[in-house]
């Protein structure tokens, strides 16, 4: 059982989190203009790196999505950051 630090709620058991995808994958727009290949890349291709990996996770009790960098080999959590942009 891993322990992840939610940037809003602090350290919690991994059971409270869901993986939501690799960070940095942007939905291509306008989607209608995408080629089959580009769309398939967006849907299905993942880097799945060995070692440090930047990922989007959601802490289900607080419902906030955030970026977590963790090592997929050692399982060490290297850091988390808010996904939400600062808005004024």
């Amino acid at each position: 059982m891993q322990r992840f630090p939610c940037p809003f709620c602090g350290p919690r058991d991994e059971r409270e989190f869901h993986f939501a995808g690799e960070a940095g994958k942007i939905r291509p727009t306008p989607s209608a203009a995408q080629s089959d290949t580009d769309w398939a890349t967006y849907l299905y291709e993942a880097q799945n790196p060995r070692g440090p990996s930047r990922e989007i996770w959601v802490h289900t009790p607080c419902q906030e999505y955030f970026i977590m960098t963790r090592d997929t080999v050692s399982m060490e959590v290297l850091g988390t950051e808010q996904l939400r942009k600062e808005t004024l």
Partner: protein
Amino acid sequence: MKRVEGLGLIDRRTPLNFSFDGKPYQGFAGDTLASALLANGQRIMGRSFKYHRPRSVWGAWFDDPNAIFDIELNGFHEPNCPAATTYLEEGMQARAVNATPNAHSDIKGLLDKFNRFMPAGFYYKTFMWPNWHLFEGFIRNMAGLGRVENVAKSGYISEQHHATCDVLVIGGGAAGLAAARVAAESGRSVILADDHREFGGGLFRQGGLVEGQTPVDWVTEQLSAVTAAGGLVMPLTTAIGVYDHNLVGLVEAHAFGQAPSLHRIRAEQIIMATGAIDRPVTFANNDRPGIIAVDGALEFLARYGVLVGKNIAILSNNSLATPAAEILRTAGAKVRLLDASTGPFTAHGGKSLNAISQGTERIPCDTILASGGLVPLVHLWRHAGGKLSWRADIAAFVPAKGPVGMQAIGAANGTFDLDVSLSEARGENLPKSTYTLRPIQPDLTAKGRQWIDFQHDVTLKDIELAARENYTSVEHLKRYTTLGMASDQGKTSNMAGLAAMATLQGKSIPETGTTTFRPPFVPVPFEVYRGARRGQYFNPLKRLVLEPELRAAGAAMAEYGGSLRPAWFGSGPHEITREAIMARRAAAIFDASTLGKIEVIGPDAAAFLNFIYYNTMATLKPGFIRYGFMLTERGAVYDDGVVARMGENRFIISCSSSHVDGVVARLEAWRQDGNNPDRVFIHDTTPNWPTVTVTGPKAREILESLDLQIDLAPEAFKHMTWREGRFEGAVARVSRVSFSGDTSFEISVPVATATALWQAALAAGKPLGAGPAGVEALSILRAEKGYLIIGKDTDGDTMPHDLGFSIPRQKKTADFVGDRSLHTENANRADRKQLVGLMAPPGAAALPTGAHLVEVTLGKRRSIGYVTSSYHSPTLGHPIALALIEGGAARMGEDLTVWHMGKQSAAQVTSPCFYDPEGAALHA
């Protein structure tokens, strides 16, 4: 075998009666079943798994693979209890597993004579040749050990505890006790766990004094110091696994019949002081009863006062043999020392030992104690991802580069001398080690069978066969021969097996490598993993506000998509038909509270919903309702439901009952991904607004008597619009939407008003012939109308145009979730499965749900689709069905073959809408 006066930790004033294989025996409090049987002269405690060879204990604790019992006490039965780790209790009735009628005379013992026909891989080979079914009955009859009962044990619940600490010390031997004391006295929070009742580990069997004290006094002093410094000591507690981020699972044993507790302890630092066990020596007949580990015999003597033999031969390759011989002689045995590194030895005897021979020399003995050197217990280290390194001087793997926050000390770290262990545990300078060992390897040329894995009957010959058939990788070797796959998971056999494979290949043991160590370290009941996570605690049902009212009205409650809802009202399933007819002739009153009521609020709400939905939602006007699909990014239909616009910046999504949590989650995901989360908000109000639905030709009359302060006239309150009214002073949201095909009103009110609304609706309906109806009747009504249920009438590949909704796909210009996926080669295929209706021939029964529609080409059947919903329609008087069929829309009127469980029937493709296709009833 006998008890030695003055030795052992047992309580000789408390005798305990028990039986084994039907015979009565007596032991003492503090005995294990194994020690009590040995004290009674009962050596044979079981039969091996494959050949049913008679076996006795090899080890005195978890390193014994042989003695496994089914135990009954006070009506409680537990299978597969290791005799060496089960403490004796008054009245226990034990039976050896895998033995008929008993361990002493097992009728399957004959199988041993046929061993040449059951070599390694025998079982796998039957899959290939000649035919598995020839062997199946025989193999299934052989499989398994203890007797499992089919009834759940009531009250057998594993308590689950969670804790944290600075330092968790696993193993309460000399090193563990010393390390725990140092840590506790330095002010850190300490938990010290040991799997025995008494702390002390190997101290008792080593004999002599510890730092000038008897072992018992020294252990007592260390424990007092640990607890005085605030530490927690946990006896009878075995660490079964180390998991990510320093989480350790520990199982605490209780009295027989009570489920063990699970402790999940998150420690800043884990100190592994788990000790070491003897490696068996590989020689001919080395599985015979009376061949015991040197350490095992010393444990039996020191903890239980049992001397395992009178005339003992010690077959050892290391320096611990001499002190062991001394201890056994002092206890009254005759002992002869043999050097295991001088090879090849043969044990003689059957159920009892006569002698051990080397070449022509024959040495009479009744017991052989064997040790091929100490093997550190590094299991937990490997669970945590720690590396191992090979130490040639002790011929063993020891912990190397460790996981963060984990440390190994004492025998688990290859430190076998007491003084060195204590210094290591205290972080002091290390004295010189005195442990020495002469390396041994199995003799491949020796005659007779040499056992590697005692429980699974893997011999040296089996390993040779595996090597010959090229299963040389240790992981392949393990699976091919089942070496190390018994309930002890290779604790005892692993090193002997690696040594055998290394010798066969002319490699060293480190070149051969180890297999993976996996939790749990000892067998534990499944219950430990389940704990309280059962039934309602595992997956709590959602309960309706109106449940007491529904039950009072005679509801038969059942689970639908995680909610407890009425299936029907009345005495049995025949009520379903009555309710469906009532709904069509008068009106039915449903509890529809589980339908989603998810508010989407904010200046970006309209654009957000337009993106979320397949259908255009931006143009929906306040007061109106629109039906729509949510798709996945892969274009598959995820949910269908209606959206009501409450105002410029406020919408309510009414999604399927079972999808509420999922829809909220995906709305939240898209809100925070690519949208401005400060301009659109998601708020699930489903539990706040119970809903009563009234549907049928008399629905409007019922609503009129509810005095909702809304103009209910058809032209004033049209289908797919909503109005806000009042009911008994509270807000009542009334939507004209329908899942039955008749005029329907969904009335949602605050929780406090729901009961009054339900009662008022029933009272108003009764004189009109209307009454409550359950989910089953509604399922029929919606199928008659061709209304679909996502996940029942669709599958993971169904796209909206497969359901006849293709306009947004063609016309909608704004981006929406899944849009691009609707225009791929796959989405354009002509043979996509499309939703259609099916009619069975007149007089035929309803088609079975799940039946396949088949196409026969050259005698071969191919499925072209399947029945998704099927009912007898009481309204129409004949069966109806919905189906997903390849190119279904183009098959209208076609006659198809239905195939189900080997039976064939006929059906004709129709429109999925069987009831009121023009919609006159819907808009009335």
